[in-house]
């Protein structure tokens, strides 16, 4: 185990992944933050909290048929590399944090280190869609108020 020098400390930068309480409409998504890395930088990702504050419908009435991506939660935060546009829940994402109830969930995975050069983006999405098979009328929007608090550590060199 080495010691931390002042030079090393200046090469460590903590970057926010942060979204204040925001209403995200049914089927919509938002990019929370993006970080570009190049050799020899790396990102150390450990901490993320996702909170679902309120729903425009009774959350107990939501069922699996209301999900756009069936394998994801009612809302989620996806981490993707080189994201430009499109559904963030599509295959090829690096990681996802799901939520399907009022409350707060936290990332419980071990720290992940990303060193592949590229643009790393955190995208929050409302995974809801209308369905004729749901008790919720198709004319009713399922909107969520969501917030995100997290941090990723950028190391400018890998020493």
């Amino acid at each position, binding site marked *: 185990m080495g010691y931390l*020098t002042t030079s090393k*400390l200046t090469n460590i*930068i903590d970057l*926010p992944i942060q979204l204040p309480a925001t209403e995200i409409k049914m089927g919509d998504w938002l990019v929370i933050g*993006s*970080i570009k890395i190049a050799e020899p930088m790396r990102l150390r990702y450990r901490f993320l909290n996702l909170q679902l504050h309120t729903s425009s419908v009774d959350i107990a009435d939501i069922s699996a048929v209301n999900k756009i991506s069936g394998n994801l939660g009612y809302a989620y935060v996806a981490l993707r590399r080189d994201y430009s546009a499109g559904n963030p829940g599509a295959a090829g994402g690096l990681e996802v944090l799901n939520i399907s109830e009022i409350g707060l969930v936290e990332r419980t995975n071990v720290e992940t280190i990303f060193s592949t050069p590229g643009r790393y983006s955190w995208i929050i999405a409302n995974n809801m869609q209308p369905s004729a098979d749901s008790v919720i009328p198709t004319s009713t929007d399922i909107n969520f108020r969501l917030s995100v608090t997290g941090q990723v550590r950028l190391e400018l060199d890998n020493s």
Partner: protein
Amino acid sequence: MPLVTPAIFSRSLALPIALAQTELRRGKQIQIMQFDLKAGQLLELRALNLHLLKVLTPGVVPVYVNRSLGLASVGVYEGTMLTGAGALVKGLQVGVSQFNPWQVRRFISPGTYTVLVSNNAQNIDLSLAVTGTLKVYTA
């Protein structure tokens, strides 16, 4: 190279620069954060990313407020007169533009430092996000 003691470590704070995807109308600005630097403190910028996500008025030839600022820009400005940025990241097209982290910018003059993102086109609306950190070293 001096080692980092707990005292040194506790004097280093990371100030978030975070603006989630936001629609920024033509010619408009948003203040993301502001910090009052006191004598003896040091402000250090290494990480600032501007993600120009979408042009919301496609097919329009941009008319720039100032062409040297690109389509959109995010900068660290000192004082109340936002004339010249101490550090600037400009986006010329959709994608991520980044401050060169190896050309660290340090600010030591006491004063108010503002991080501002601007849409520098007179006729184009943009969707963008900003992520970064200002490190402050207290006395």
